[in-house]
């Protein structure tokens, strides 16, 4: 039997969840034995080359591209997992949800304390750029998500245990330390 195929993506996230995945340390060698990676920033494969078994999504949806990528993952993965707080609830990026989009753009491109070069006060509006959404959406409001791994980021052990359970079909081990956050 061929190895299960995994794909991963980061949407409106900070890459911390991917870092946590790498935090499984030497178990990564074991992982490579167990699974095959397809589209993922880890191996820099940019497009799906085959149907995958598991898709791990970090980050919520803040712009139109996030939505497209997420929908593409849903199409190409049998099981989709929201990895971390941002994917599950929007996380830190969702802090902007209460603020009018106009104010967010102004702060980021015109009035913010770190804006120095934008003397012409241009707001990015090139057609090639993704369009900003009215708010940051959690992934499960856009597509069906099968599993949720909480944490910011989820601990390496939680990700490892979950992947192992998905790949082997064994029961997921969830010791208290793995899902305790404070």
């Amino acid at each position, binding site marked *: 039997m061929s190895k299960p195929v995994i794909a991963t993506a980061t949407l409106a996230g900070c890459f911390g969840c991917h870092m946590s995945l790498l935090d499984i340390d030497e178990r990564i060698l074991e992982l490579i034995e167990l699974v095959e990676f397809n589209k993922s920033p880890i191996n820099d494969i940019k497009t799906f080359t085959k149907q995958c078994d598991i898709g791990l999504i970090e980050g919520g949806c803040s712009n*139109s591209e996030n*939505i497209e990528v997420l929908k593409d993952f849903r199409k190409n993965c049998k099981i989709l997992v929201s990895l971390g707080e941002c994917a599950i609830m929007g996380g830190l990026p969702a802090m902007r949800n209460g603020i*009018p*989009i*106009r104010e967010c*753009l102004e702060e980021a491109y015109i009035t913010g304390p770190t804006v120095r070069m934008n003397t012409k006060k241009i*707001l*990015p*509006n*090139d*057609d090639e750029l993704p*369009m*900003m*959404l*009215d*708010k940051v*959406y959690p992934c499960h*409001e*856009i*597509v*069906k998500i099968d599993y949720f791994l909480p944490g910011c980021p989820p601990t390496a052990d939680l990700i490892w245990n979950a992947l192992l359970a998905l790949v082997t079909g064994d029961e997921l081990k969830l010791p208290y330390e793995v899902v305790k956050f404070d």
Partner: protein
Amino acid sequence: MKEKVQNIVKKFHNDRSRLMDILLDIQKDFNCIPDEAASIVATLLNMSKVDVNQTISFYHFFSKEPVGTYAVYLNNSAVACMMGREEVARAFEEEVGTSFNSVTEDGLIGLWDTSDIGMNDQEPAAIINGIVFTNLTPTRVKEIVIGFREGKDISEMVDKYGDGQNSNELIRSMVNNNIRKKGPVLFSEYEVGMAIRNVANYSPEQTIEIIKNSNIRGRGGAGFPAGLKWEFCCKSGGEEIYLVCNADEGEPGTFKERVILTELPMLLFEGMIIAGYALNAKEGILYLRYEYKYIKDYLEDVLQQLRNLNLLGNNIAGKGGFNFDIRIQLGAGAYVCGEESGLIESMEGKRGEPRNRPPFPVQKGYKNMPTVINNVETLSSVVKIILNSPEWFKAMGTKESAGTKLLSISGDCKHPGIYEIEWGMTINEMLEMVGASSVQAVQVGGPSGVCIDPSQFARSISFEDLPTGGAMIVIGENRDLLKEFVMNYTDFFIEESCGSCGPCRSLTVILRNKLQKIMDGKGVKADIDELYEWGNYMKQVNRCGLGQTAANPILTTIENFRPLYDSLIKTDDDFVSTFNMEKAVADSCKYVGRVPKL
């Protein structure tokens, strides 16, 4: 400003625990609590300003910005909406020229939504500058707004007074009592002071024994045996013991306490004095919801009459050492302050956030001393138990529910109002009594209770079957149960959650959005299952009764009206997204000046 604020703080002896009263006075004098006033208060009370601010921000009737020279607080609870609240709200907006939850530019008129104000039998109703206006209509709204513009005094605008003591010169309110059925306990004739003189002949222990023997259970909702509560409190061994009467009456649909406070305040205070004696408490506090402020002067006067009769104060009824006095503590608009430990926090001048229990209030309550908190109706009933006998009391009602119950009945019925019934009455009997036909559902016990369907109308109103704090809302056949009730009540809990517990703060909103999704025809079967599963989870993970029952409107309608939900599910798909790209990018594209590429 400084001098004015200083005087107010001084009036309450620079006592931090009286922060509520201090802020209430400031709000009244300045029509808001200016930031500068908050700073002055903080300095004088030797508190951090953040602490003052967090109390201010907690309560609906405190505001940092002016709320309008005329501030209209219009009830938005379900029964108000049934009776035409929306038309009244639109009329206000049109006449005033501003939308709800804002103030006109000239600062003259503010329009505000507010949670249930205890007037379900005469809705739509609003509180304007502390005065209650009932049975509002768009025409009446026009007159009222003209009055505002003419600068009339608000009390001049009350055109006719309600029945009974509502026309008393200390109340002068248009509120009606709507007493429809007088029962043998609360509304029977009695001689003022007799019960107090009787207990003065007993020991406190004997008094508690009598109350225990009567099997009276708390009327505020939870139904804890009152005698046992008193006994636990006495055994806690604090230096001082406090008695608190809970007149927060915040559960949408209940208004019985409004009537007791208006018509039977002597009875209530006598009950408090008897409890005070049994507990050996020296101080009793009546926690009165802000919405009932219009009765406060009258209540103060009744207290003075009791003092004049030597039934309150020192050596009551001539008994040496029987010292007890009562003060009234006003709330400032927060449903959760009806929860006993939230109420204590509020009485101490803090945010009304419920405490972790244990310790229970009977162990460590007000000012960390053992405290008994009883409902208005519980304490009023005590008097008649003393005057008659525990056996007399137990002979009424059912085995586990002794005595009578005051019901506040409203909604689709001919005779909304107050009914004192014996426990054990069935819902069918009740519906007949109030003149209701073609009933789709009855909301028993308010939003935190249960919503039952006609197949259950043979059930009885009692602790063993259908317990209730007294709110009964009759829902007619033609009502949209989900939109008019379940949604309204869920919004109520969202608004009133104190925010301490994550699930109570957030899951309520998630449940609401899911319900909206289903109502919009975008739900899938899994959404109903999740509503139910997550709603049940709320019972286990929240600190107080508010969060534990906040999903009840959803849960009990899924249980009893499942076809309503099923009929809204339009697809066999297992997932439907409500996301709409066009809408989601419209604003940002417009602002940066590009055409959305969809």
